[in-house]
């Protein structure tokens, strides 16, 4: 298990963290390198229940946000 010290000097309470996953094709020397990548599942789990964004979570600290579960509804579950 890779453990590394987090030297973040701005780890104040209520500080925001923006999350992104990104991939970019481009040149590697003179060769074009391209990635065809699927994300089958992306799941965020909150280690503290109090950090879960909405207050109606009683037991499910682990919140599945994007699942590979087939047949699941998609697109703005509002």
């Amino acid at each position, binding site marked *: *298990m*890779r*453990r*590394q*010290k*987090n*030297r*973040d000097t*701005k*780890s104040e309470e209520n*500080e*925001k*963290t*923006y*999350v*992104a*996953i*990104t*991939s*970019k*094709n*481009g040149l*590697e020397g003179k060769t*074009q*390198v*391209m*990635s*065809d*990548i*699927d*994300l*089958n*599942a*992306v*799941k*965020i*789990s*909150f*280690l*503290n229940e109090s*950090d879960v*964004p*909405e207050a109606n*979570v009683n037991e*499910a600290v682990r919140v*599945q*946000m*994007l*699942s*590979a*579960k*087939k*047949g*699941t*509804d*998609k*697109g*703005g*579950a*509002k």
Partner: protein
Amino acid sequence: MVVDLSKINNMAKYILAALAAVVSLPNAAEAKGTPMENYSFDYSAHQLPIGWTTMQNAVALHDFMKLNSAVEGRGGTILLERPLFTKEIELDIEFQLNSNPDTSRGFEVIFNQNFYNTHEFEEAHFGYRSDYEGIGVYVFRSNTRQNKWYVMTLQGNGAKSVFKQPKNMGSGLTSQNSCLIDVKDHERMGVRITLTKNEIITEIEGPGEYSFKAC
């Protein structure tokens, strides 16, 4: 002035039809969804959805995200549409590479303290900007290391701190901030990133495996 009533009737019909079409537009858009609608599988426990917004080549399909396609010079990004107010999270990513692992580049996961500017994704400057504040976990192929794939973690307050301060976490690819990952095309693999206030833990899941192991 002579007014042809039949024309008025026809005109009234057209107006009514146009009004009806306008009035029905929102319902139609609602039924079909809009192209800009955020993608969310949030069927669990939130009152409000926390979804991912796609950018560039990234596209949400029925049961997976196409993060990037094999198109020259292009890229793809998904953004968590709301910021998190905690650094104590665990992020699991299951991915599949459909292109040749020997000529693919990979992807990166960014935890940033600043809001993103879209052009930064297009120019792939994350982790290299002078004002970068955050953590980057890179799943990438190293062309200088026999085309092997690595999971590497970097953190810094800019290019100087990332690459020139040896005490900072990572200054390029080292044994302290990276590990090998076996990448095969068309097979599922995974990365788990656990952030706490004091450390970052990365774990990997190779092809054919169904649990994360130490990185």
